[in-house]
């Protein structure tokens, strides 16, 4: 009886916390115009907001997708071997490396944007997808190193040693043994790298100056900049941009808590 009461309270807490998310979906289904007319329920749902969102922001969604996928690949390729080294090799450099990662978390994105803007301007990476992928690795790489390392600390050294006795080099043993075992933590790190990059707003805002390359976060910001007339199109874009987070939460629940906890420097 008491346990049921707890569940009811839990559901109520969740309703309050998730109300804005509900409101986003509700507003996206309302007829166009401002939200003055929006009722608590989308009794007459219309998809005109989504049609407009896809017309105007469809290309930006694709851009975001390419940038996020690229960031995942590049971040994992760079972070995984390093995470392994930091978890298994004995060296005083390990603690120096970890300290460097800790300090890197204190550098505001605007500092990175300032420097990359001037450098990109010179080498022609402004307004380019590779430029944004590289910038987004600034959040992907340190996070992936921390997540992967905290998992790899639990790998028994005997696993790799057995392969080594059979004559495999360090790198072969890493690819053939360590990577397959680390699959779950690789998924966690990859999901979060994707999400960070998909959510990126600062680099999109500062490292693009023309309309050519425009991630969807920037598209939403530009909607907000002009006087908002059609909340349903804005909210439909917001819903579409929230899809990765929602899918992640439903499909990959167990990876997420691991990511949240692993990301806090252990």
């Amino acid at each position: 009886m008491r346990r049921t009461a707890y569940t009811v309270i839990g559901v109520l807490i969740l309703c309050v916390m998730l109300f804005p998310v509900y409101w986003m979906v509700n507003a996206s289904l309302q007829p166009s115009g401002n939200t003055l007319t929006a009722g608590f329920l989308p009794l007459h749902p219309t998809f005109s907001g989504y049609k407009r969102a896809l017309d105007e922001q469809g290309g930006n969604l694709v851009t975001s997708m390419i940038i996020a996928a690229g960031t995942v690949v590049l971040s994992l390729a760079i972070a995984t071997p390093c995470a392994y080294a930091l978890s298994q090799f004995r060296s005083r450099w390990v603690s120096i490396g970890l300290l460097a990662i800790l300090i890197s978390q204190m550098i505001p994105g605007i500092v990175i944007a300032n420097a990359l803007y001037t450098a990109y301007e010179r080498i022609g990476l402004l307004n380019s997808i590779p430029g944004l992928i590289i910038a987004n690795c600034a959040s992907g790489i340190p996070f992936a190193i921390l997540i992967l390392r905290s998992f790899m600390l639990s790998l028994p050294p005997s696993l790799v040693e057995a392969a080594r006795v059979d004559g495999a080099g360090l790198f072969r043993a890493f690819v053939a043994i360590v990577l397959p075992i680390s699959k779950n933590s690789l998924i966690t790190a990859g999901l979060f790298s994707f999400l960070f990059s998909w959510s990126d707003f600062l680099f999109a805002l500062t490292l693009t100056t023309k309309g050519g390359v425009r991630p969807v976060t920037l598209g939403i910001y530009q909607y907000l900049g002009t006087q908002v007339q059609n909340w349903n199109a804005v909210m439909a874009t917001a819903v579409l941009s929230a899809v990765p987070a929602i899918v992640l939460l439903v499909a990959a629940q167990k990876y997420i808590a691991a990511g949240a906890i692993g990301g806090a420097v252990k």
Partner: protein
Amino acid sequence: MVTLTRTRVAGRAKVRGRHHRGESLTKVLFVLPAALAMLALFGYPVVKNLLMSLQDYGLKTFFTGVAPWVGLQNYKTVVTDKLFSDAMLNTALFTVGSIAFQFAIGLGLALFFRNRFPLSGVLRSLLLLPWLLPLIVSSATWRSILEQDSGILNRTLQALHVINDPVPWLNSPSVALIAVIGVNIWIGIPFNVTLLYSGLAEIPDELYEAGQLDGATGWRAFRYITWPNLRSVASVLLMLGVVYTIKVLDIILGLTGGGPANATQTLATQSYQKSFVDFRFGQGAALSNILIAISFVFAIFYLRGTRRAVDE
């Protein structure tokens, strides 16, 4: 016979030596890409910002390539700007207000979810959604909720007769900062719940059972068992909170753009404004260096605190 064995042994030792040298090279190759990436994405920007903050680095520089050295002039300019003290105060209020409430509410919810009840796990993971949404999506959603005339918050409060006239949540200098802090609290609660819950889960039940025998229940159990055992998680969380909150930009730009009348301008938004709106990169760099310095002070306190905890 003897010599033969000797050369064989020597040969094997040589092979092993070569193997070892190859090995340490491989080890370096494991770390090298990440080290270079960290240098390019963090080391270079920090050095570049330090240099830029000492230069007259403006729009002209991009055409002429010239950025004259000006010493500490940029720091002087930004610190004596009449906006600076407001931005400092706003940054402090934003950071302290956000963290205090995120932590308190997060702790409350974590303690609640510690009770075992059906669906507890599912509800807890659904709670993470606000943390996973892109910040600009949250900003857009809250802007529609907080709209003065048509937003659902004002309409609800009016219907309940809590207020008579609609509150200009984002348009009035006196309430905009509170509204922005409120949204940031909402975004941060899930992360706090998750970390504090994992901290609570690591406290062994036996401690509570033993405490119960000594009469430590309710508040006393919290005070003497829960809190001391949660302290290390709490200190990590608060340090991360300061470091992350102090540099928040997306939420403020999305909700108010630093307005109205600079009421929500922080050091981070100021730095963005100087660099990418006014194209005064030198001044923007000076402001963000001040931001880094503040983060470092907190980090040092934290590191000293944890070292002491380890030493004890």
